């Protein structure tokens, strides 16, 4: 009807009470359906990502991480704002009584230990900082860049299904849209790097552009492989395709469907890591070389927006990885029972499962970041063009061959509207063959690589605890 998606239509119709809603109802519906979930889900989770990062880093480095910032201050401030119509003494008394509540008393120290207080403190600090625009900067470009970065990170979420029909925009070309829209980030980083009027920033910006543009190709090819397999670009349909009845729902996930898809999943994750400028691909903001790369000159809220954009992008990669390869919002076991539940309950469960899935990939990214060193510029490019892209091409080709050999359709998924989509039905033999050949090939390749590289120097073996 409005072309803005099923959910917007439904809400607009419900709001206006007529089958042809006016523009006010549509606008309100868009706000409710698109913007509100964005704020309600992505913002807190992205902010939480920062805490996850700091806590995981602390654990890896055997520190405590943020655990001292109290939540009392922000809460008191919240009380003062909420109760601004009351005298100060009454506000304080109310706050004291609130603090004495058993729930609050037991919960506050735990939240403080988890570093939630640090989150609030950092937020307040960023809001309060001076907004500095360097004299040599290109003002408008410099100011606009963080917003654009955030836009590029948020827009793709519009088509990511969080639960059955819990999607802001149901388009049939979701996969294409995601890749197209996330390209905005490139421009944002270039603007930030160029507009700062700082040589380090510019180098960072240039590196970012070279890297992002290059790594969009393996990402695109990996997505293309999934699209080829599923026969659709609709992310919702791709998720629905991975549904299997029975206890072990995860056998339907694309990750285990074919070794080629597994390879593509690996490439997608690595390239995704590069797309969000994370170690080992964080050349663009390489701290030890370029101070802070493209965001060297940013401070306060604008810097905060860049940080938020980075975490949002990490979440996006996690969400896309889950959607494309891990069955989206579906539970790994017993999905059919969840589908059978009350729709609201099922939606909440799906949402929870999805958040857990992309937090898991967030954790993986953080883990990688605090473990590995950084690639050099030329090594990053070589990895992309000489390793990831060929792997992708071979995998997509193999996938196509597999589809031709074992192609077939199987009617009926959990979701009625997708019943007619084709899905290959490989026999047991087909599956075994499909896995055995590439795995053997990989083993041979690894052996050859090992032999070519030669053994480790005995001194190194001794340093790592082996016999001298």
């Amino acid at each position, binding site marked *: 009807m409005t072309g803005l998606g099923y959910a917007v239509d439904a809400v607009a119709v419900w709001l206006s009470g007529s089958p042809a809603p006016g523009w006010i109802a549509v606008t309100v519906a868009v706000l409710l359906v698109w913007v509100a979930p964005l704020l309600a889900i992505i913002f807190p989770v992205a902010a939480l990502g920062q805490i996850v990062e700091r806590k995981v*880093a602390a654990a*890896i*480095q*055997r*520190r405590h991480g943020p655990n001292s910032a109290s939540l009392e201050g922000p809460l008191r401030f919240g009380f003062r704002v909420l109760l601004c119509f009351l005298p100060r003494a009454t506000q304080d008394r109310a706050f004291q009584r609130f603090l004495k509540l058993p729930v609050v008393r037991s919960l506050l120290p735990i939240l403080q230990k988890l570093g939630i207080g640090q989150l609030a403190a950092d937020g307040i600090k960023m809001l309060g900082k001076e907004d500095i625009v360097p004299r040599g900067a290109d003002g408008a470009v410099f100011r606009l860049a963080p917003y654009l970065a955030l836009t590029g990170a948020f827009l793709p979420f519009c088509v990511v299904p969080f639960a059955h029909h819990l999607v802001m925009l149901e388009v049939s070309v979701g996969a294409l849209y995601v890749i197209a829209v996330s390209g905005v980030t490139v421009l944002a980083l270039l603007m930030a790097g160029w507009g700062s009027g700082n*040589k*380090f920033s510019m*180098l960072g910006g240039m*590196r970012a552009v070279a890297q992002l543009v290059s790594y969009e190709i393996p990402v695109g090819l990996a997505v293309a492989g999934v699209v080829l397999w599923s026969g659709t670009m609709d992310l919702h349909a791709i998720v629905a395709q991975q549904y299997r009845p029975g206890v072990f729902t995860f056998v339907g996930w694309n990750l285990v469907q074919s070794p080629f898809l597994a390879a593509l999943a690996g490439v997608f994750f690595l390239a995704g890591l590069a797309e969000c400028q994370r*170690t*080992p691909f*964080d*050349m663009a903001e*390489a*701290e*030890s*070389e370029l*101070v802070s790369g493209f965001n060297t000159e940013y401070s306060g809220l604008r810097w905060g927006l860049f940080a938020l954009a980075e975490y949002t992008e990490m979440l996006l990669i996690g969400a896309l990885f889950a959607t494309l390869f891990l069955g989206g919002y579906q539970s790994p076991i017993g999905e059919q029972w969840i589908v059978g539940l009350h729709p609201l309950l099922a939606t909440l469960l799906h949402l929870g499962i999805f958040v857990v899935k992309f937090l898991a990939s967030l954790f993986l990214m953080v883990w990688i970041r*605090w*473990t*590995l*060193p*950084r*690639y*050099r*510029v*030329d*090594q990053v490019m070589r990895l992309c063009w000489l390793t990831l892209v060929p792997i992708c091409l071979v995998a997509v080709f193999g996938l196509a061959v597999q589809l031709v050999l074992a192609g077939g359709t199987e009617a009926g998924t959990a979701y009625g509207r997708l019943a007619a989509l084709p899905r290959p039905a490989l026999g047991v033999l087909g599956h075994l063959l499909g896995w055995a050949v590439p795995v053997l090939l990989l083993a041979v390749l690894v052996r050859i690589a090992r032999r*070519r*590289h*030669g*053994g*480790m*120097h005995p*001194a*190194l073996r001794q*340093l*790592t*605890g082996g016999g001298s």
Partner: protein
Amino acid sequence: MTIEAITLGGERMQLNMGPHHPATHGVLRIRVESDGEIVSSCIPDHGYLHRSIEKIGECIEWPMFVPYTDRVDYVCAMNANLAYCVAVEKLLNTDPATAVVVPRRAECIRVLVAELNRISSHLIAVGAMAMDVGAYTPFLHGIAQREHVNDIFEKLCGQRLTYNYVTVGGVAFDLHETASEEIASFLDQFEKEMVRFNKLITTNTIFRDRCANLAVVTAAEAIAWGLVGPNLRGSGVDWDLRRDEPYGLYGELGVRVPKGERYAGRKGAVGDCYDRYIVRLLEIQESVRLCREVLKLLPPAAAKANDPIGGHQADVSKVLKRPPKGFVHCRTEAPRGEMGYFLVSDGTKVPYRVRVRTGSFSAAGIFHKVMRGIFLADVVAVIGSFDVVVPEIDR
């Protein structure tokens, strides 16, 4: 990986790395001229940390200069103390009338603290090198171990960074009662920890690929440019003053000297960043062994401080008032290579001239040569691999 910098009539970019840059170790300023990502020239600019230490040496009495040696190299202050004190003792020994015999227990303690400080200094070196290449975690693990060494030193002399512990004729305080056990237990847990550290970063493929064949210094070049210490040994030159010109107790200990052997394998070269890095790690292992040896040799403490076996401080207050005339040059093996003191005495209680020569200074001299044609990203890694400490350059 070295690429010949080719410029097709293009413009070169001047980039100031430092004096305030997160990766340069201290206030080191490097003027880099780059052609895109490739460094076409690189000029270190020194002097931001110059404190006239050598001039101060001409104004104060012999033993009063020891605290200043701490500041010559604050990452390994014990070794810096030791270098000066050994030099002064050499000066005193030129005249039999003023000769000083350092008690054996003091010699043992000196080796112990020097090797412990070498461990902690090399931990900073390898950790910072890992951080320059982008891995933050190993640095913190190294720092955590360094803190243990600092704890030991704090119990020993009350300080954690600038110790002022080694004195002319001995050491300032005797070991506390439980020191031997503490050091032994530290060494045990430290060895396990280093295995972890090496598994985390040293054999990491990314790290190895980045450091292999980077900033290669051949043995002939290393000698020609006057590199010293681990930087020299990293280039495959077998030279260590502790073994080849032993001072103190080192002659008895039989120091094993590691040298660069193309540890990175097929992709590497002798004298690349990876070799320098591995040589430091192997030296840490050797220091652990030396500490254990010395703990076995340590004689029990005597009641008198100037006891020639169990004491910790020979009586030198009189001879330092009237040292022999003349000059002496004495070099010792500090973590950053040879630390040489040239002392001129005119027979008074104040030195006529104090001159310090340090390892970082000669390492900084070769920067402009090895950095030409490498990637911008590697500049910090190369600085890290030479383990430059700025106060040592500027003094």
